[in-house]
């Protein structure tokens, strides 16, 4: 990476850069991945309806979750007062797929076709039991607001590979369901230029990107030339290096005004793209559109792209709602992996699919033959990873017959973070930022790299 462009791109003060350079010597490991695309499924998909096949539950349908399994572990206030905890087996059909024979339910026909590219982890677990703390934990390694998100740690640690685009972009899709918060891509106590930039599907893709009506490019250029010249005059008098930085930032802003619309304009994409991702990909704001955008961002060197798909919080009417969710996401998720592979980008791009926790095997609300709901469950959930030096065609970790407790190879969210950083060439114990007297890390004082899933 070119240091000067890095400095200009990120608006780093000279001191921050010094510290970073010193730090870099210590933190760098050989990198398997250069970029990450994190497909965050907000609201928490039910693992036992998608991946974590539990045929045993069919025989126990409607019977209570045994206390030997629950072991008095806490439940949310939504079901803690239920009289009973009747087990609700998935009504969806499961099959083994690919050479690896991975179990996937028929809700995910497209994902089923790429299982040999994927590494499934069935043994993720987390601390929090409610959405806000849990998603905040997934994003920042801490349940309460105030710490930097994964992407901002990466921007801080690795800088940007593109002078005309932000290093960290967040994309959101889906209306309703659990809300999202700016802090999920925020920079916490890190300087704010490390925060993710959310690209929007309506209005300007980036806030304040467009010139006001009646100001064309020529007028803007002229105005910028003036700003630059007057600022330079001021610099001669005051000798403040911040003035030089500001001049450079205005130039970068000008370039972004071209590079971002070029990025979001899909007119150059051939028909085959939409055959792969589906026609939905033409609709701004859809998950498929965001998957396609994330490929385009990745191609242009954006280091961390995070999609947030809302609407996975299925306390009631799970079968209906999960069908809707999978119908609008399955094809595009699989297409993204396929597309990256075809373009030779998958090897050094780590793709992650998953939510903030899992869901309960027992039913929330009324259980019928074809309808049920599931409450939050932090003790196990499934994610998949692809590319970026992960083993392929692997299923790692194991849960009990109730998909309630992990029985083999638990992977904590901190471990996922450690592994992610490791693949990008960063020792998670060394990427630190001193704040309030403490050297903070994404993984706090925890986390271990899950070496068994690395190729």
């Amino acid at each position: 990476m070119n240091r000067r462009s890095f400095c200009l791109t990120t608006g780093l003060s000279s001191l921050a850069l010094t510290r970073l350079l010193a730090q870099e010597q210590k933190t760098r490991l050989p990198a398997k991945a250069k970029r990450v695309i994190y497909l965050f499924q907000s609201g928490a998909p039910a693992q036992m309806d998608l991946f974590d096949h539990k045929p045993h539950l069919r025989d126990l349908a409607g019977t209570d979750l045994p206390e030997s399994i629950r072991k008095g572990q806490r439940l949310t206030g939504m079901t803690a007062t239920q009289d009973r905890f009747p087990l609700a087996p998935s009504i969806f059909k499961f099959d083994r797929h690919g050479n690896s024979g991975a179990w996937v339910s028929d809700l995910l026909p497209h994902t089923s076709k790429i299982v040999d590219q994927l590494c499934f982890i069935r043994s993720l677990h987390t601390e929090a039991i409610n959405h806000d703390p849990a998603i905040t934990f997934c994003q920042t390694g801490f349940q309460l607001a105030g710490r930097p998100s994964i992407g901002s740690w990466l921007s801080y640690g690795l800088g940007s590979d593109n002078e005309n685009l932000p290093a960290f972009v967040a994309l959101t899709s889906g209306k309703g369901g659990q809300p999202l918060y700016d802090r999920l891509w925020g920079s916490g106590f890190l300087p704010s230029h490390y925060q993710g930039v959310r690209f929007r599907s309506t209005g300007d893709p980036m806030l304040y990107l467009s010139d006001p009506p009646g100001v064309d490019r020529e007028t803007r250029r002229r105005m910028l030339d003036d700003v630059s010249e007057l600022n330079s005059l001021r610099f001669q008098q005051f000798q403040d290096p911040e003035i030089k930085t500001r001049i450079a930032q205005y130039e970068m802003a000008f370039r972004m005004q071209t590079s971002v619309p070029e990025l979001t304009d899909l007119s150059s994409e051939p028909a085959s793209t939409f055959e792969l991702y589906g026609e939905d990909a033409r609709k701004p704001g859809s998950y498929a559109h965001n998957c396609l955008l994330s490929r385009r961002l990745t191609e242009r060197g954006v280091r961390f792209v995070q999609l947030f798909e809302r609407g996975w919080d299925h306390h009631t009417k799970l079968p209906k709602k999960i069908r809707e969710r999978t119908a609008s996401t399955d094809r595009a998720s699989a297409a993204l992996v396929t597309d990256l592979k075809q373009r030779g980008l998958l090897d050094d791009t780590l793709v992650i699919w998953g939510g903030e926790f899992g869901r309960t095997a027992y039913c929330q609300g009324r259980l019928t033959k074809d309808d049920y709901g599931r409450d939050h469950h932090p003790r196990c959930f499934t994610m998949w990873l692809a590319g970026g030096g992960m083993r392929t065609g692997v299923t790692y970790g194991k849960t009990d017959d109730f998909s309630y407790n992990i029985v083999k190879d638990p992977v904590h969210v901190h471990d996922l973070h450690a592994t992610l950083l490791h693949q990008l060439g960063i020792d998670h114990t060394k990427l630190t930022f001193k704040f309030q007297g403490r050297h903070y890390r994404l993984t706090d004082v925890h986390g271990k790299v899950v070496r068994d899933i690395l190729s």
Partner: protein
Amino acid sequence: MSRYARQLIAFAATLHLASLGANAGIDYDRDIRPLLSDTCYACHGPDDAERKADLRLHTRDGLLGEIRASEPLESELYQRISSNDPDERMPPPEFARSLTSKQIETIRRWIEEGANWKGHWAFERVERPDAPEVKQTEWVKNPIDRFVLARLESEGLMPSPPAQDSVLARRLWFDLTGLPPTSAEVARFAQTREMAATAKRLFRRPTYAERMTSRWLDAARYADTSGYQTDGWRTMWRWRDWVIDSFRRNQRFDQFTLEQLAGDLLPNATLEQKIATGFNRNHRGNSEGGIVQEEFLVEYAVDRVDTTFTVWQGVTIGCARCHSHKYDPFTHRDYYQLFAFFNRLHEKGRVFKEGNSAPWIVAPTRAQARKLKQLKKTEAAARSRFEEGSRNLPEQIHAWEQRREHTPTWLDYESLVASSAQTNGAVAKFGYFDRFTLSAQIKIKAGDQGTILSKKNPAKQGLGYSLDLTKDGKVQLNLIKRWLDDALRVETVEPVSSGHVLVTYNGSRKSSGIQFFVNGERVEHKANLDYMNQTFETDEPLLVGKGNADFTGEVETIAVFDRVLDEIEIRAVAEPSPIATILAQPERQRSALEKSKLEQYFLRQAGPDELRRAHAKWLAAKRIRAAFKRDLPSVMIMEDRNEQPTHILLRGQYDQPGERVFANVPASLPAMPKNAPRNRLGLAHWLVSRENPLTARVTINRLWRDIFGTGLVKTTEDFGVQGERPSHPALLDWLAAEFMESGWDIQHMLTLIVSSSTYQQSSRSTPELNRRDPENRLLARGPRFRLPAEMIRDQALAISGLLHRTVGGPSVKSYQPAGLWADIASVGNYELGEGTDLYRRSLYSYWKRTVPPPMMMNFDSASRESCEVGMKRTNTPMQALNLMNDETFVEASRVLAQSILQATKHKRLTTAFLRVLQRKPNARESGVLERSLATHLAKYRAAPEAADDLLSVGQAALPDGIDRAELAAWTMICSTLMNLDETVTKE
């Protein structure tokens, strides 16, 4: 590594030297403790749980036990840190931190020089040092300058000459009011350059109080929403008004502290003192369904402890929540002793999604309190007029009956929204903030049950409301959002028999806001479920006799009102007989209810005009006052119940209580006086006592930081051993002592600072000075740094003339790109304000924690999710786009251009410079802009529609008959000026 990077590292090295001082001997507190703390304390520091080899390098004895003074080679400590044997070497090679060879050498020298030891400077009592002697005494305006100059002289540096008039005035105005001066004000200021007198004038402006309040809001994590998942609204602006008022009257900082931390506990606490305690209710509150309440009760108390100790003590006490602090002398026990001051509220772990959560109080403004008094008087007068006229009411009714001049009709009820005669499904739509009355005349026998009336989703316990008769014959009101954890279920204590049943709900979302009446008499009730957090409003039809289970008795009549009836009205409604039937009975045989109903009929419909008018006026006055009271703002406050048993929480977990502890301050700081109450008031007194080493230092340091850009202690949030040492330790202590001894007088301190030569220096630098001291820690020049977010926006409003200067009041919604909330939040749409709401100062901008105002965040505002006292300052392309394209700034440029066009042509550019920068342009600047003006003008003349487009931005009116092309061209010039580095910078 590129040359560029090497250069940067060289900068850093110079800075380090600068802060160390060139020739000084090794000082334990300054040079050694920070090294040991950063590299050794994690295993050999204050945390008992993590301590290895029982080694306590943080204590004097522990450390000196490892050292033989003057003999480094004989000292175990030095042997270990300098050893080449990986088994011996400390810190161990696998540990994340290590010592550089230079640091090891420093430790060696320290031992060689005799291994002096001192306590950590910030925890030592503040003693006022003597101001040092200096050579250039003519430069010294007050003692501040002696401290600064002494250091400069020792470094061989010269102070800078005074700043130009316009630069200095601008600096002073931003520092004291957050707004730029006008050019006329600059001219007046330039005549004398009297700093103290000018400061005094500025202190009298409300803009001073607003400016001080802005920073305090960051520290206090002030917001208009509750944060976490739903992030619904709350109202805390009355607390913000209190802060403004406090700064306006220059309240002593010790009193400011007492009232905010413990105003409720002061003897005869006033309303304002209670409002002040809102400080520690500004933290986030979680309303998410299904949370474990105990978990969040802990988080709230934790937030109060951490915020209080960050703001007043500048220490990172939060580290001791899970285990003893790794660096500073705060134990795990200390933390929960502090926690015990703050966990005694009447509060719930799950807060309301909308509105304030207990404890809160109604908090009228002074104007509202006056109005309320007046309404009370009006009501009393109306009442006595009515009572006058109705003194002999039974006789009047009797006389009227005798005259038989009137054909009896029905009693007309006000606010009746549904009755047996007029039930159609679309009526009676109520939500949880609505006030209503449900009533029915029922005929039942033992064992009857079912729904009397309902408006709800047909599913069992579905969304909506219903009035039911339980299987044991009790009347029950159900208000349901989600069954079990989001519902009110309230029922009569006793079963009822045939007759009239009525229930009122006052919109409070609590069972205490519900009343039951049977046959017109109030009866007792109890709550089975009493937690409602989302509205039960629904579009389902209103049904009689069904909803949950079909009613097995008979519902003879129903009546639903969209208000809470009073008891007189309720008695009238409860009487089923029509007026004609009542009148047909002999007077003596009429029941009390019948009499009541007849009386209402007489007062409302049949009586003499004058009486009816008097009655109606009294009712109206009563309702106006009640409605006014309901609309009064409320604010969340601190209010203690009896002390709660407090336990150390193992690893900070809510469900892992350890040993019981009692409220107290950390053992390593001065003790609380023996007789001080062990409550928040005692704690607040302790914080502002002369013995407390931190409060004054921390506070004055933040004040210094606001003015000079960097604190004397750079780590404003951390005065512990891991924080940075002060650049001018003696100056900091002198200021802290002066602050306390002046009676904690903020304005006095500000006056001192701005009157110093140090403050008044030019901020021009040189390449040489940039190399020596890039961050200007030595203060060889004046401060120069980008304005904070709110000042950048406020300045644009001020210089364009758009700024609306109303002080205080509820938050307002100014411009932000459409749809930001809708994109990601679950409730609420951002409804853009109107008129002057768009142009208020930024401290009044509505702050939604999970989607804060984007312009504020672009320019490094605190996020308000938790307490932030550090200031970030970045320089990004997003900021450039924001200033160029945000409606706020484009509109301000256009409105500024409008007024510039009032000037004669050749004076316009000068006018523009004077408006924006309060100085005249030089020839080169004029040249650049005159040329561009011509280009822009030609362009907009050729494309009038483009001019129209540009001028359409913003809601401010466009004057008639203006030359649009010219205005558009000038709008671009003004926008250019608004985007200048100089404009967004305090020089």
